[in-house]
């Protein structure tokens, strides 16, 4: 059983006992524990179930590479699945549950898959579940999907806060081990602005655990001394619980800070995502130990040798009473020594190498521990927990020589540098045959905006596994990074570490070397996804030769650990099966993030009220307080209608229209774009921007204009007012304000840069209020101020003046067909004028109206609406707007485009009015059918509805639509298809339904 030792544990504080629960069972641990350590301290080796076969899984590692010990953490809206117990700091009140089992962790029905595993080799689902066809949908897929997933589903209502932080550094060092600290020291001494980040809560990495001595003192002491030195440098920032998550182009680095995961519910953000721009990035991310592939290597109790060491030294955890160590290298012998020093039994060290004569093996032998060389593990005994191992000759096929009882197997297949961050942005790797791993190729580093290498690997992450080399390499990395940024080389000498000479490892990819199919089908490569040696060999045999094919076919390395433990071993097995060298086969692509990061951290502050900007007009508070139903228009929220009492939307819209047509209505038109265009060439410029001739417009007058893109398609419309000889005020649609402003600047800056024109966007300087209806003039006259008579201010004219004491500019323009004044007033006075108008207007029966009433009224008048009659494929000619296209101009944006054969095709659909025969309302977007069907069997069509409303004014449905040769077919009847297949008949009519001669707006 696994227990807590009476003494030791460099990271725990035995004075701070913390209580937590696992699957509801109360347990205790110490401050400084990880959840994994605390669970082991409570003899909880079994922590989860595998994905495919639901096999019992114990913890194998002690860090972010852990594939098995995934738990559901927290409760209610704070529940989070798939949390690695090995990187979860224990806190008081923590509650965790294990995953992927039913009904319980110890008894899991799904484990039946385990017994059927022979029938579920890699890719089996591609080969079956096909017949009969219906069975896939109704039987097989539901089963496959039901068994999917690991963690439980999260809940809505995450109560925590998240944020981003933009940071800029010369040099960012990722990794707080001795390499990282040494590199930071060198870069810092050279004067660079440095950030050092460590993903865990503790500095120093492996060195203190491995008993390394640096500059004559224990690594632990050197680490704290160095930390102090770095703290004292004001150009260096140290940050723990901050993980380098992803390296992106141009020195962009994402780092993930777990601010309060270890003290949930406290003030401040839970996670902070650092968006860092770095001159140089040093990846001192260390190395990860590889498992060995022997039969039964996935049983709870089989762990990485380094992890066993970590648990003993860092947390005073005895993973078991009797440990067998199996290795192909010297490093694992450190585990033997650590265990013995803690008073635990090491039954034997099984070394696959023919001989082991290095200093560490010797020390182990001297300590009286049995060492067997040239041996391997034939298989691990036990069901839910290791009970012993059967030894065999590594060179053989697995004939059992001897069985050794034990409850822990500590394995080491050598070390692989953590190259993820090096690789994210295109850094290439080179195969190091001596150490049997891929390490960064310094000649093929990721290049930055200047084409210079910007990532430098250091220490173990660079393939330097011996402490002394690690420090030398790291010092050089820090030095070089600073120098590359133009800093003066300073003291770059490395600290000196004692170096126990280690003998070379022996690459061992399967154990024993001659294992047959039966053993190979019990050798796990990917613990979480249940990918075995036999699966990779099967993939190779079936022609899935590319490493990407094999990965996808077997799902090797696609689990939540992204193959941190399995990739190299799988790769080696694959290349062996293909009979090619490992470097030829190559690796899969490393993708960000290094370990999973929360979605909420990615969104940062963009949630709830601050998800997106919500633009408010000066009158928005009034709308909020007066029953407005809003609709989003761009980032604005515009009142769709103002409901009164128990009114539904339709009734409110009807009331607003009727009132506006009979009394007076009020519209908040502040969102309309208002662009000032000024300069000697302003007229000439607008003649290019608009299809109309604007240069001939007289000061004091307004003109409706159309804008097209170079394709000829209509992109915006609005009223242009000429303010003086060289100044125009161009109104755009609400959505168009910023877009058209950018469009104008584009042409002025990039095409006609010698034209003398300036543009300014005054959209928000003015609140704009449309006072609309037969009683509009009477109302304004009651406000006191400027002359608004037909003579002083005729239709399509504008004038400056004051109203009720406010400085205003009034445009006599109408989008409703009624007598209409659009009043622009400085935004800061908009609400005051609005209130005054409402107050004074009561005697005239004034009512505000919303966008829907606006739509209906414009449709009654046959006015087109950008976005309804247009959809990005419509030219003005389609809409019968030829009158607004100047024939005199030899050029305007879109003129050439409109001359292309398809644009001049007489068969284009053109705008008409549509009148249903039964007075009903045509469905929005309905198509008019034509006889027959096309070559693809689709029903032919001859037109479509672009706008359709119930008109309270006419008491019937009215619509506008585009119809094949429409204007030439007045009076013809068309059939419009409903989605249910039934037809609705409508007659082609003039699109102007109301006040055809425009008398009302022109009084």
């Amino acid at each position: 059983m696994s227990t807590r030792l009476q003494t030791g544990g460099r990271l725990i504080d035995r004075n701070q006992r913390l209580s937590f629960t696992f699957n509801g069972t109360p347990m205790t641990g110490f401050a400084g524990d990880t959840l994994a350590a605390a669970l082991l301290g409570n003899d909880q080796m079994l922590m989860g179930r595998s994905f495919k076969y639901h096999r019992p899984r114990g913890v194998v590692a002690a860090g972010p590479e852990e594939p098995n010990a995934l738990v559901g953490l927290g409760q209610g809206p704070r529940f989070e699945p798939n949390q690695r117990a090995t990187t979860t700091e224990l806190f008081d009140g923590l509650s965790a549950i294990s995953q992927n089992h039913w009904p319980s962790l110890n008894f899991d029905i799904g484990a039946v898959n385990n017994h059927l595993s022979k029938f579920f080799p890699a890719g089996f689902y591609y080969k079956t579940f096909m017949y009969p066809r219906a069975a896939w949908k109704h039987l097989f897929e539901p089963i496959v999907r039901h068994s999917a997933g690991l963690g439980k589903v999260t809940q809505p209502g995450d109560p925590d806060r998240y944020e981003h932080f933009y940071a800029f550094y010369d040099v960012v060092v990722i990794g707080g081990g001795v390499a990282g600290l040494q590199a930071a020291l060198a870069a810092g001494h050279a004067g660079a602005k440095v950030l050092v980040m460590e993903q865990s809560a503790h500095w120093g990495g492996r060195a203190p655990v491995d008993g390394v001595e640096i500059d004559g003192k224990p690594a632990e002491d050197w680490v704290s001394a160095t930390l102090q030195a770095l703290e004292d440098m004001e150009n260096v920032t140290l940050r723990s619980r901050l993980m380098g998550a992803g390296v992106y182009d141009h020195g962009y680095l994402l780092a993930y800070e777990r601010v309060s995961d270890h003290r949930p519910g406290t003030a401040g953000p839970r996670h902070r995502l650092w968006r860092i721009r770095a001159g140089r990035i040093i990846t001192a991310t260390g190395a990860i130990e590889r498992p060995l592939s022997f039969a039964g290597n996935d049983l709870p109790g089989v762990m990485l040798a380094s992890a066993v060491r970590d648990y003993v030294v860092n947390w005073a955890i005895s993973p078991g009473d009797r440990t067998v160590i199996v290795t192909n290298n010297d490093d694992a012998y450190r585990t033997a020594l650590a265990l013995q020093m803690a008073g635990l039994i090491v039954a034997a060290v099984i070394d696959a190498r023919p001989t082991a004569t290095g200093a560490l093996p010797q020390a182990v032998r001297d300590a009286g521990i049995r060492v067997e060389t040239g041996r391997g593990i034939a298989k691990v005994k036990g069901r839910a927990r290791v009970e012993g191992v059967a030894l065999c000759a590594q060179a053989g096929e697995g004939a059992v020589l001897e069985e050794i009882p034990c409850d822990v197997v500590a394995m080491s297949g050598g070390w692989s540098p953590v190259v993820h961050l090096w690789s994210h942005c295109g850094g290439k790797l080179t195969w190091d045959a001596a150490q049997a791993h891929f390490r960064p190729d310094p000649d093929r580093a990721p290049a930055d905006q200047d084409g210079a290498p910007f990532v430098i690997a250091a220490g173990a992450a660079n393939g330097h596994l011996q402490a002394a080399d690690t420090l030398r390499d790291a010092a050089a990395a820090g030095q070089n990074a600073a120098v590359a940024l133009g800093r003066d080389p300073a003291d770059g000498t490395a600290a000196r570490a004692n170096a126990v000479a280690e003998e070379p490892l022996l690459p061992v990819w399967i154990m024993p070397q001659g294992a047959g199919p039966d053993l190979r089908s019990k050798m796990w490569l990917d613990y979480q996804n249940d990918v075995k040696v036999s699966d990779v060999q099967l993939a190779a045999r079936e022609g899935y030769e590319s490493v990407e094919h094999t990965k996808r076919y077997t799902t090797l390395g696609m689990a939540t650990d992204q193959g941190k433990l399995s990739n190299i071993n799988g790769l080696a097995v694959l290349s062996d099966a293909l009979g090619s060298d490992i470097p030829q086969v190559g690796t899969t692509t490393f993708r960000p993030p290094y370990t999973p990061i929360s979605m909420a951290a990615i969104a940062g502050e963009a949630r709830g009220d601050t998800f997106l900007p919500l633009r408010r007009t000066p009158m928005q508070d009034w709308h909020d307080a007066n029953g407005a139903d809003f609709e989003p228009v761009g980032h604005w929220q515009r009142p769709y209608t103002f409901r009164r009492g128990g009114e539904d939307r339709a009734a409110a819209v009807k009331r607003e229209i009727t009132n506006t047509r009979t009394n007076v209505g009020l519209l908040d038109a502040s969102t309309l774009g208002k662009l000032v265009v000024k300069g000697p060439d302003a007229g000439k410029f607008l003649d290019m921007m608009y299809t109309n001739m604007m240069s001939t417009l007289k000061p004091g007058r307004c003109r409706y204009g159309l804008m097209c893109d170079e394709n000829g398609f209509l992109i915006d419309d609005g009223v242009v007012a000429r303010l003086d000889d060289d100044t125009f005020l161009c109104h755009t649609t609400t959505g168009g304000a910023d877009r058209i402003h950018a469009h104008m600047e584009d042409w002025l800056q990039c095409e006609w840069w010698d034209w003398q024109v300036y543009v300014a966007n005054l959209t928000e300087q003015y609140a704009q209020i449309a006072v609309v209806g037969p009683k509009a003039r009477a109302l304004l006259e009651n406000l006191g101020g400027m002359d608004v008579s037909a003579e002083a201010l005729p239709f399509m004219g504008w004038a400056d003046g004051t109203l009720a004491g406010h400085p205003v500019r009034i445009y006599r323009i109408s989008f409703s067909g009624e007598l209409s004044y659009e009043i622009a007033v400085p935004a800061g006075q908009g609400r005051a004028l609005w209130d005054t108008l409402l107050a004074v207007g009561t005697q005239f029966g004034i009512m505000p109206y919303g966008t829907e009433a606006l739509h209906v009224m414009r449709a009654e008048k046959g006015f087109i609406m950008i976005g309804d009659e247009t959809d990005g494929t419509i030219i003005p000619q389609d809409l019968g707007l030829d009158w607004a296209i100047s024939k005199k101009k030899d050029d305007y944006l879109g003129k050439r485009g409109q001359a292309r054969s398809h644009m001049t095709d007489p068969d284009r659909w053109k705008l008409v009015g549509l009148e249903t025969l039964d007075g009903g309302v045509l469905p929005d977007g309905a198509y008019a059918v034509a006889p027959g069907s096309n070559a693809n069997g689709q029903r032919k069509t001859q037109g479509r509805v672009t706008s359709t409303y119930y008109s309270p004014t006419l008491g019937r449905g009215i619509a506008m639509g585009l119809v094949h040769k429409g204007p030439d077919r007045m009076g013809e009847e068309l059939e419009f298809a409903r989605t249910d297949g039934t037809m609705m008949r409508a007659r082609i009519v003039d699109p102007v339904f109301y006040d055809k001669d425009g008398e009302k707006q022109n009084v």
Partner: protein
Amino acid sequence: MSETVTALGGAHYAGYATITEQPARGMITLRGNLAEVAVKNAATGVAGVDMPDLRECHIVDQRGIAWMSPDELLVMVPHPEVASAVSTIQQTLSGLHSLVVDVSDARALFRIEGSGAREVLAKLCPVDLSPAAFGPGQIRRTRLGHVSAAFWMVDDSAFELVCFRSVAQYAFDLLKTAAEPGGEVGVF
């Protein structure tokens, strides 16, 4: 002349930095050839501060000039003076190709103050806000979350930030959240 109401009526939040919407300030967009002496004189004439150079903002209390682009200045005067300032500038520049418009009401103006001010902005703007990189006398036009904004420092610990009036509430909410106690980063 009726009074001018700001977008948020002087909203205020005190976190580990304080955020305060400022009273209306006269703001004038001046577009023209900044090399022209007349343009320089027109701006400095009403603002009473030196002509700013590239990415500079000279400001004394309510009066100042901010360099917005190679052909644009933001001229700041006390709000009651803005109308007269506009016409003064227009007269000074008469005959010269230029554009002078009052944009006071189109803007919201915030003051971000306190030791945490730099951090609060660094959570929302992709800009190096370390003292070595940004300080009084400079202006930075950038984005604040999803909206365009510009800010400058009025002293070592206080910023002024302008954005469009319609997004004042969004900007304030962002700044407020960023300034909530417990969110201290502690790097500046």
